[in-house]
């Protein structure tokens, strides 16, 4: 058991930090420190391409696909330095963390050639089309239909909560391709170009006034027959494989974003005297401890190569960070007091901490609600009987 990094790894850390800081002080200084995922999309696409050119876009990928074949420790270091340098989040995180690894694991050689280099180069932005109005927690009940017609897939239906669909180039969708099937059977995983007449995207305004998520409508939308990952009817298997990638190294970068939020709360508490309140001090200490435990939980999960047993740290990670961050939002408002409930501007736009308070209500819902997470933990982690399915 070892926590420290080697001198070579520390050198690598310096290399990452130097490059990122130079970029953020130079050509991309206008996007430094942006925290909202929807801000400056065009500039951030350019940033994706800059990362790609310099081979910093997907460092964990094999070199042949545009990565650096980086070790786990190097990926950890890069994620930490990325956030430390105030670099905004990746607008192509779905492409890098979900679509890419899925294609790498399940795609054909041709699909790899076609997609991976462009994802790594920051030229193809992906979004995810899983949820539907009638398929939220119960993901397997998707109804969007796909049928093969004239050598093409033709898709009809609706997806929802498609984060960043409005700035994406491709969407992957789980479609029902076998008439009359229910649940996980009869589903197929397709990748579709977004810029086509059959796809319409409408933004959903959220409780914080922002619109990161969308409704995506498919009306005879089309994609080539070979845009399918896996075989016909294997959509559920591919989707589940993809969701397993969601707990990768990127969580450490996400945590550095949390670090910045907690630091802002600490600064606010110092400035307005809340840092003297014993109860606030207890809560800040709890938040600090929780954040550190998230880091070491993630390092345990990433260091673990024994996949024969259930990894408790991985299984509990989502609910852990989501719940922590929701509490952090509440702490932020208690530190700010009523000053957090007003904004100087004339538009309904919020600074980091009030926005954290509002946005974090989504954290305990998307990617599996806290209630679904508890079911999964009890069933997969502890072997409790599965929830019975209704037949409505």
């Amino acid at each position, binding site marked *: 058991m070892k926590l420290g990094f080697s001198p070579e790894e520390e050198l690598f850390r310096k290399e990452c930090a130097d490059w990122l800081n130079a970029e953020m002080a130079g050509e991309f200084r206008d996007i430094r420190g942006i925290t909202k995922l929807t801000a400056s999309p065009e500039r951030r696409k350019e940033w994706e391409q800059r990362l790609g050119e310099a081979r910093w876009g997907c460092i964990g990928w094999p070199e042949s696909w545009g990565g650096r074949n980086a070790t786990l420790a190097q990926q950890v270091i890069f994620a930490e330095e990325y956030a430390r340098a105030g670099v905004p989040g990746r607008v192509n995180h779905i492409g890098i963390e979900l679509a890419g690894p899925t294609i790498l694991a399940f795609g054909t050689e041709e699909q790899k050639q076609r997609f991976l280099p462009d994802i790594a180069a920051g030229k193809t932005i992906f979004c995810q089309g899983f949820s539907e109005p009638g398929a939220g927690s119960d993901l397997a009940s998707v109804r969007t239909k796909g049928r093969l017609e004239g050598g093409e897939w033709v898709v009809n239906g609706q997806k929802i909560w498609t984060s960043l669909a409005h700035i994406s180039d491709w969407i992957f969708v789980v479609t029902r391709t076998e008439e009359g099937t229910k649940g996980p059977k009869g589903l197929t995983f397709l990748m579709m170009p977004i810029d086509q007449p059959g796809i319409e995207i409408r933004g959903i305004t959220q409780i914080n006034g922002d619109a990161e998520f969308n409704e995506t409508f498919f009306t005879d939308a089309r994609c080539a027959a070979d845009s399918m990952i896996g075989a016909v009817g294997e959509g559920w298997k591919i989707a589940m494989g993809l969701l397993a990638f969601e707990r990768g190294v990127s969580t450490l970068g996400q945590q550095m974003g949390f670090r910045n939020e907690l630091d802002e709360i600490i600064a606010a508490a110092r400035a307005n005297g809340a840092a003297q309140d014993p109860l606030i001090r207890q809560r800040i200490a709890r938040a600090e401890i929780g954040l550190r435990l998230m880091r070491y939980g993630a390092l345990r999960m990433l*260091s673990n190569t024994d996949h024969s047993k259930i990894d408790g740290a991985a299984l509990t990670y989502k609910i852990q960070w989501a719940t922590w961050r929701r509490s952090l939002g509440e702490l932020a408002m208690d530190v700010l007091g009523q000053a957090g409930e007003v904004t100087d501007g004339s538009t309904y736009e919020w600074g980091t901490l009030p926005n954290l308070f509002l946005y974090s209500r989504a954290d305990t819902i998307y990617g599996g609600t806290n209630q679904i997470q508890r079911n999964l933990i009890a069933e997969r982690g502890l072997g409790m009987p599965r929830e019975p399915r209704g037949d409505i």
Partner: protein
Amino acid sequence: MHFVFTEEQAMIGETARALFAENATSQRTRAAMAADGIDAALWIAFCQELGLSGIGIPEAAGGAGLGMVELAIIAEAAGAQVAALPMLGSLALSAQAIAAGGSAEQQAAHLPALLSGETIAAYVHDAGLTAEGDTLTGEAGFVAHGASAQLFVVTSNTGAWLVPADAPGVTVTALTTMDQTRPYARVSIAGAAGKPLADAAAAIAAAHRAGFVTVAAEALGGAQACLDRTVAYARERVQFGRAIGSFQAYKHRLADMMIEIEQARSAVYWAACAADEGSDEAALAVHAAKSFAADTFFMCAGNMIQLHGGIGFTWEHDAHLYFKRARAIQSMLGDGNWHREQVATMILGEAA
């Protein structure tokens, strides 16, 4: 960076778990509870046959080397069985203090007997202790396994001394204690002669570090045992024609236990590893581990009783052993609020 056990660490864990599972049975622990809270035969087996007592004590001081990670592994295994042993007072606090702060002579005079289990030491801390030269006066109300000890390591906030339990001026009163697996004694010292440890600051720091890590690891093991035993019960107990573990209200409580336990596991081994590596984070980590793991254990032990229903409230069931141990760990060596205030001070500065 490789935050998983080495093969050697995994083996130590297996050895320790096997020892405690086989020997620290409910029956034997209850026999110890009815007496002085020590399963003497198990303590000798632990110290002598398996030689686990020297773990975390430098080889130069007669120990087995290794560090806090290995100490935590053992404490976790002992905690899982609520073993009635003087591991905390005699090894994690006293032997650590002597190994870190004692002179070579003091180490040679005391550590072999502590590590062999022939002598039991207890740790007596009184912030208000007065020392005229090395003549000590003070009192500590909650000395773990104090009535079983032959030797005391007595500390104030700045000094550390060795005082034999039978020294003139020392009065030891055994206290009927809620957690009978680790009964307290009141130790009154009225003008007793102490032998000062050569480096008191080092002794106190080592005792605190090892003490926090040990009780945190015990709490982790205890919490996991509460979950494991409750999961087993959830499978076998049937009500309304179904296993009670199939009810969502029940499952979600089990899940909440696991969520806290996984964080406690990260906390304990982060703290132990940071301490071993001399990391800057170690000071914060040991406070985080102690407070978090203690709260986790209490939450899990409380849930264990609730989720067992009536049987969990009986003396016959072991749930109360965990529940009482958890409560004791929350209070001892600084309560959760105190540890979190130490963390707050590190990041916010002192409160005015």
